[in-house]
Every structure is written in structure tokens, then in C-alpha cells.
């Protein structure tokens, strides 16, 4: 079960990371940490992709992973930019304090 290491180990590892990222996203108040949780989720995806890539002995997975990283970087940059704009107007980065829009 634990040895040898096969693709499924990576997939389970990835699922666990996805779960932790999701929990972080869902429970933390600080938006910066929520953004970090998104990074965890995307890293989980990358573990998957790289593991499959190795399994198929093909490069697509790795290439996909590069693009996922690019997307993660872009999202982080824009997200942090919006966060700064938000902080400038609201003086808070707590997720449960931004609820002007509702109902």
C-alpha cells in the first residue's frame, strides 16, 4: 500500500492538499490567507498534472502545470491589487466585514 510509490499516491496527496486549501478558503477571515489558500488548491492541481505527466511519459502535464502556475501568479497579482484598493477604502481585510452587497 505505502510502497512502491505509484501515481495514485500523488493523486491522494493532491486531493489532501486540495482539501486543506478548500478548508482554508472557507474558514479563514483574512483575505490574504484566503488568497494563499487558492495557491494551495492550484498546487494540488499541479501535483496531479506532474504525476500524470510522468505516468504517460509525455510533456503535456508539465506544460499544463506551467500554465496553471502562470494563472496562479496572475490571479494573485490581480487579487492583491484589488485587496489594496479595498483596504484603501474600507480599512479591513476581513472577509466577513465586506458585506455591503447582499440580498
Amino acid at each position: 500500500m505505502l510502497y512502491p510509490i505509484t501515481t495514485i499516491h500523488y493523486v491522494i496527496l493532491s486531493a489532501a492538499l486540495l482539501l486543506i486549501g478548500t478548508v482554508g478558503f472557507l474558514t479563514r477571515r483574512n483575505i490574504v490567507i484566503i488568497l494563499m489558500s487558492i495557491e494551495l488548491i492550484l498546487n494540488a492541481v499541479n501535483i496531479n498534472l506532474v504525476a500524470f505527466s510522468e505516468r504517460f511519459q509525455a510533456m503535456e502535464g508539465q506544460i499544463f502545470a506551467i500554465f496553471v502556475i502562470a494563472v496562479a501568479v496572475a490571479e494573485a497579482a490581480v487579487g492583491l491589487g484589488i485587496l489594496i484598493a479595498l483596504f484603501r477604502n474600507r480599512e479591513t481585510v476581513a472577509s466577513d466585514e465586506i458585506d455591503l452587497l447582499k440580498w
Partner: protein
Amino acid sequence: MNFLDAIWLIPLFPLFGAVLMFLIGRRLDPQPERSPEALEPELAEAMGEDAGQEHGHHPRFAPTRRLISWICPGTVLVSLLFSIGAVVQLAGLAEKAHQVILYTWLAGLPFHMGDGAVGRFAADLGFLLDPLSGVMILVVTFVGFFIHVYSIGYMGHETGYYRFFGYLNLFVFFMLTLVLANNYALLFVGWEGVGLCSYLLIGFYFHRKSASDAGIKAFVVNRIGDAAFILGIFMIFALTGTVRFLDVNQALHGLSAETAGFGVLSLTALLLFVGATGKSAQIPLYVWLPDAMEGPTPVSALIHAATMVTAGVYMVARSNALYSLAPETMAVVATIGALTAIFAASIAFAQNDIKRVLAYSTVSQLGYMFLAAGVGAYWVAIFHLFTHAFFKALLFLGSGSVIHAMGGEQDMRKMGGLKDKIPTTFWTMAVASLAIAGIPGFAGFFSKDEILWQAWSSPYGSKALWAVGTVTALMTAFYMWRLMYMTFWGECRADEHTKAHIHESPPVMTVPLTVLAAGSVLAGWLGVPKAWAFLPGSFHAFEHWLEPVWVAAAHEAGQGAHEAALEWALMGLSVLLAVAGILIARYLYVQRPELPDRIAEASGPLYPALLNKWYVDEIYNFLFVDGLAKGGGRVLGRFDQAIVDGGVNGAGWMTRFASAVSGWWDTWIVDGTVRLIAFAVKMISYPVRFLQTGFVQQYAAVILAGMAVALGYYLIK
């Protein structure tokens, strides 16, 4: 000129007028700045719909306004002339149906139906002129034209003149589309369009809150019917593979009637009928029509008496092939019709608002039409529709003239003795009242008598239906003449100020009254009873004219055993009852005016029941609203505690919600179904909105929960 191929132009003329009004109407009729006093809502309310006509400030209007008075009635007149031309040419054809198909409007892809045949739901932008639609376009354009003319006088001092005529023209356009359509889908276009225009016109006096409420009510109730109607259209398509009237009739022709029980044909017919009850104000969807009388009086005359509300009857007659195959649904139609007739007539007994009496009378007369249709006598239904259009339009216009004379007063208890002051109005209204009461020689007599005879003799009819109809005839005569006696006889009960201003309306209003009065007498002579066989054939023209429209099965119904002696006897009885009704009204309201009050006192709970429209609205209230308001509030409270925040935001909303509930509670004492439905929707709306707390991670949690449910569904499966 070949008018037959130009029938597609008939609806377009009024559309042209309407578009013109929306485009340049505001320049032709610049809105004058309102004088301060007219801005006072209470004053406007107090002066009623004719506010500002006789008293107070007269806004000065641009001279180009006269152009509107020419254009809009003019377009309807052109349509009228084209209609006459087309119908005359139709009469010369051997095959009494002429279709003009412009292009395919809704293309459908072919698909296999249940029986393996390939259907193709294609609806044309096509028009069909046959005897039935011929009658309808004549009624619509003729009555429509005179009501337009009348409106020139009636709305002369109102602001928003161009809007009014624009809506009115738009309405005529949609109504003509409705009756000229050659398929159900296009009929539905007109069906929705007239609803929209009715809505806009009811709400025309938007400074009255009740008017805009009534508009909403009308629209929502109609929408309930429409949902059924559109499903019915799709059912027809599923059954026959087409929606064109002629093809549908042909396809249904071969089928045998569903006598075994309530099958798919009956369901289809029933769905269509539910649509018709919405538009034609039958039980249980009648509640909107009396409220619709908040609109200007010409609108009540045109839309809520003469044309739009008869669309349901027209549609049922149009679908006669389908109904003939569904005897159970026909029984439903006849029963609902008869019940509506007597029920509405009983309410009309005790109403004191002149327009409300007429409104309930309209509901009642529509019930008659459905009674006729339900017993398979479609031509009689259309005949009554035809005669009713004249005398009911006349009654409304006349009442408008009375209200005009009384400076906006609508309460009959404050009228009286107007006979000599407004003679033209009086005489024309008297003609209409005789007609609706069923006095021989006037139009209403012929059609109503034929309905009663068919109810008795048709294979679908029964003695019970006849009895209900006959009692209703007595009641009709009574309440109509109650109205006449209260309004025109006796002492004038108005205050001095109003009394001084009573005057006859200008000719632009009285001429339409006179023309319609002539119609109310003459229209009936097109369909005299069969017992009057001594008259030449042209007196039986109506039935003969419509004959090509009905498929054979439907037609047989009208040919019930014909015993002249029996027919004479029944006719005599109904005339006797009509005269009795008039005499009772005369006795009670002219000779012994103190009696009605004493009867009201002596009758125990009956009179208040009538006065309050049988407490229908209150019953709706008690059954549903009370329970919902209180129970729902409690459920909501618990919901909020249990779920999500339960916190500050929720509490704030609950307060607003609770106050909203109590606010509605007040208005509901006088309101029924629609508010109930609206309320029910709102009651569900709030919890749904509560889920949206504005808290971003809760949204994410819901997303995840959605995913959990989806995955769980597959894992369990």
C-alpha cells in the same frame, strides 16, 4: 380593389397610429405644466377621473393636439372600411375562408411524434378571414372606431392625450391580430398584446394607487391563464402536429369524441379554457375585471366590455373542433359559464358604483356566452358576443356620459332624476338596458333567448343549465333597471354644486351613443328565433353565415329537436321574467324608494353578503392569507435562527419584513387571489434572498455543498 388579400393591412393601420403617437405624440401634444392644485393628490382623487373638466384649472393645450384626434380614430376608420370590404368580398367566395400567409414566423425542426408521424411546429405570420373572424373584425373596428370618437370628447381635457390614443390604437392592433391570426401562436401574440395594453390603460390614471394596483392584478391573473394557454398550444401541436386553425380542425376531424373519460383531448381543451377564463373573467379568475374599471371609461367600454374580454369566447369557438371531441370539458365550460352568470348577477344586485354594476354585468354576460359555447351552440355564443358588444359598449359610454355630467361622481346613490337633464344619454342607455334585459325587439333578446333555448334543447344542455340561465335573466333585468331607475328617475340626490353643472355631453360623445343605440336594436334581427319561421331568410342570416366555421360534429349540437310550441313557451317565460324584473325594480326604486333599505335590513346576512361580493376576497383571505402570514412569519423566524448568521443583518431584515407583512395585511381585507399569489411568491422570495448574506465564504460553502450533493447523488445511486 381586392380587400381579401389586403387583410394583413387591417391590423397595421392602428399600429401605424400607435407608433406615430409614441414617436411624435409628445411634440404634437406638449404636456402643460401642471397647476399646483392639480398636483394635490387628494384633490385629484376627490374630483375623480374627470378632474379639471368643469371646475378649476383648465390646462391650455397645443393646437396640434387636434391632429391626434384625427389620426388615431382615422386609422381605425380605415381598418373598418377595409374590414367591410374584405367581409363583403368573402361573402362572394364559394369557400368561406381566405388565408394570407406572409412568411413563416416560427420555424420548427421536424421531429417524430408519438404515432410515428413527422410533425413540424411551424407558425406563420398569417391571417385568416372566415365568417368567424369576419364578425370579430367588424365588431372590433366598428365599436372601436366609435369609442375612439367618443374618447376625443371624454379625454379632451386630460393630460397624456397622445399616450392614451397611442395605447388605444396599439390595443386595436393587437385585438385585430388576435382575431385575424391563422394559428394559435399568432393568436397568442395578440392575446398577450391586448393584456399589455389593458394593463397600460387601466393604469392610465396613475395618480390613483388603486388604478395601478388593479392593473397589476389584471396582468397577473391573466398570466395565470396564459401559462395554461401556452401549454395548451403545445399540447395541440403534440396532438395534431400543427397550430394552424384550419389544419388543426382537419386533423381533429377524423378523431372520435372522448366519451370514455377524461383523456388527453379533454385536458388540452381544459387548458385552453383555463386560458379563456383568465382573459374572459370567469370563475375563479374573474376577480380582476371589476377592479379594471379603474381605467378611463372608454377603456372599460372597449376593452373590458366589448372586445378583449370576449377573446376567450372567440378562442373557444375557434377551437370548436377540439371541444366537440371533449364532452367532459364542454360540461365544465357550460357549468362554469352558468355559475359565473348567476354569481356575478347576484353581486351586481347590491353594488352602488355605476361602473361596478356594469362590470359585474359584463362578467355575467360573458358567463352566458360560455354557457352557449359549452352546450355546443357556438354560433349563439358568437351571436351574443356580437349583440353584447353593442349594448354593453353603449352602457359603459352612457355611464361615462353620466359620470361626466355629474362631475366625476360614480355612486348611484348620489344621482337620480337625470332623465330630463341629459336626454340623449338617457334614451340611448334605456335602449341598451332594454336590450340587455331581453325585451323583444332589442338585440339582447334574440341572442339571450337563443342561448336559453339551446341550453334547454341541445344534447349537451340540461334543464338545470336552462333554469340557472333563466333566473339570471330575471336578475339581469332587475339590476339593470335598478341602475336606470336610481340614475334617471326620482329626485336628484347630488349636492347643489354638482346639480348646477349637470349638462349633456358634446356631440362628439353623443353621436357614438346614438349609433351604438341603433346597433343595440338592429344587431339582433340578424338571428331571430327559429320559431319565427315566417320571417324571410335574411333574418336568420347570422347562423347561416357562421355555419362554414363549425366542423360537422359541433354543428349537430345546434340542431336539437325543434319544437316550435315549446320554444314559444320558453320565450314567453323569459320575456315575462324580464318584464317582471323591470317592474320589481320600478316598484322598489321609483314607487317605494324606502323599501330597498328595509329589505336590506330584513334580509339578515344576505344583503351584506351581496354588497361585499359574497365575501370572496375575504374568504381567500381567511383561508390562505391569515394562515400564511402568521405561520409563514413563524417559520421564517425559525429559519433565520437556525440557518446562517441568525445575526444582526437577519434581524434587521426581519423587522422590515414583519412591518411589510402587517402593511399588506391591511390592504388585503379588500383584496383576494392575486395578492395571495403575489404574497405567496414574496413569502418564498424572502428566505431565498436571506441565503444571500453578502458573505463571500458562505457563497463558497454553498458552491461546495452543491458539489457535495452532486457527488453524493452519484455515489448513492
